[in-house]
């Protein structure tokens, strides 16, 4: 009799634990989905401003062409797999860094109102990319931690949702922007 009560009690506790943990995983998946969308929105904003900067006539033609090409590649990478997409965004970072590496040259772009406005916007977009990527990777880390627990794996609490991946790309702000 006592054995039965104890077993029932243990089963109830296990059930509660599993149901709460399933709820946690569900919330974490939702958070990753949102953070990934937020990151995409900020990346898109960054490439739009980069394209605008490239075609505004405030850069030398060679840098302009380089950035326009990289920005276009980043903007059309949405349909590619995660790794190629991250590569395209890292390439854009590299192109922007090449053009805006030297604080003195960057200062010359800032002379015009158009140039300084675009640099402000680009810098703001860069910072939001950095932040949202950091928050996204933090959400992935939290989710992975729960999903690798023993009970979660044997009861398949995560369902068929793919194992979450962090976003690895270079989002270092160009030297010319940080030194403004």
């Amino acid at each position, binding site marked *: 009799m006592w054995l039965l009560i104890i077993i029932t009690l243990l089963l109830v506790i296990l059930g509660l634990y599993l149901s709460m943990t399933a709820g946690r995983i569900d919330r974490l998946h939702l958070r990753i989905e949102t*953070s990934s969308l*937020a990151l995409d929105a900020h990346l898109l904003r960054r490439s739009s401003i980069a394209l605008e900067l490239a075609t505004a006539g405030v850069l030398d033609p060679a840098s302009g062409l380089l950035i326009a090409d990289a920005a276009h590649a980043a903007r059309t990478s949405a349909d590619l797999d995660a790794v190629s997409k991250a590569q395209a965004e890292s390439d854009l970072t590299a192109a922007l860094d090449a053009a805006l590496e030297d604080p003195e040259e960057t200062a010359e772009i800032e002379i015009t109102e158009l140039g300084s406005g675009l640099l402000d916007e680009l810098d*703001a977009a860069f910072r*939001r990319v950095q932040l949202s990527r*950091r928050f996204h990777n933090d959400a992935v880390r*939290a989710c992975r931690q729960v999903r690798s627990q023993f009970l979660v794996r044997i009861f398949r609490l995560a369902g068929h949702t793919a194992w979450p991946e962090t976003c690895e790309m270079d989002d270092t702000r160009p030297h010319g922007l940080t030194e403004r």
Partner: protein
Amino acid sequence: MKIGLVCPYTWDTPGGVRSHVADLALTLQEHGHTVSVLAPVDDPADLPSWVVDGGRAVSVPYNGAVARMNFGLKAANNVRRWVRDGDFDVLHIHEPLAPGLSLLACWVARGPIVATWHSSHVRSRMLSAGYYIAQTAMEKVRGSIAVSEDARRTLVAHVGGDAVLIPNGVRVAAFHEDGRLPQIAADVPTILFLGRIDEPRKGLDVLLDSLPMMIEQIPNIQVYVAGPGDLGEQHENLNPALSQSVTFLGRLSDKDKARALRSVDLYVAPHTGGESFGIVLIEAMAAETAVLASDLLAFRRVLEDGKSGALFANEDSSDLAAQAVRLLGDSAAREQLVDAGRTRVREFDWDVVVDDVIAVYESVGMPGEKVTTDIRGQIVGRLGMRPVS
């Protein structure tokens, strides 16, 4: 943006977190945002219109001190109603693991949630005991901010997760208070001490020990001591010969503190330890007062190793006396420190710091996303959150 801020500690009692929230709320409003602050309130009489009463607080021991916070089903309902009616674009919770309004807000809300970590010495015992609860609530936080490197380390070590470092701000303009504090003499060299007088770590003893050496060089020097605490012991220990040179001002209002800083020649911070940031030095620099501080790591960082404020060897009264005498006799040197301080303090001006906070707000949600109430999957939530009409 419509922003909801949650402060777990009573609005009526001054404190680090509470003033951080108040300054952030004021600055956000100056930048055109709509802000509502939820906090426990004892006396709702002169509450600003943007503060919402989260209920009366009770005193509980938490994290090695007695804090005043609120709990229970009624508080949970207050939080839920506030979240539901607020229609916020972002919910910003301060000190999220303080068991009170902050933790409750984590339970009842979902959507773009940001948390700021203030404390750098959360007891790990409390965290390990509440690990599951903490973890579950923290998983809803989409972006974490830490106010200091120490606070960030605490979060990484005990809770897990990453945080963006955004230092405490100071409302620089608020320290440009006009007029002198009448209690402070105008025509003699003056020194100010701020902080609890019966707390040894604030270092009042170091300052008082150095006073005889200073009087030898500058007989008419006046030291002003402002701050709460029991006067008895300090008075008894005070050498009667010194009592003419020391004035106790008691606790000052924020405005009078700014006036006091602006009225003296030198602000001395003889703290002996336990400071993780040194906001008081920033306040002195904001008030355009020359600073002399002990060479604690946190102070050296704020003062850029002596560039924007002078330093003396920690707990060394004779070094303190020598530096103070040198500065009081050299107005050009003081002027130079004030100039450097004015530049330094800009980095900590809420007007600038708030841009970083807004960048975090904009990075945690999708455009148009709102904070909503959440009652799913939480047993505590189901018990505590009866539908409110």
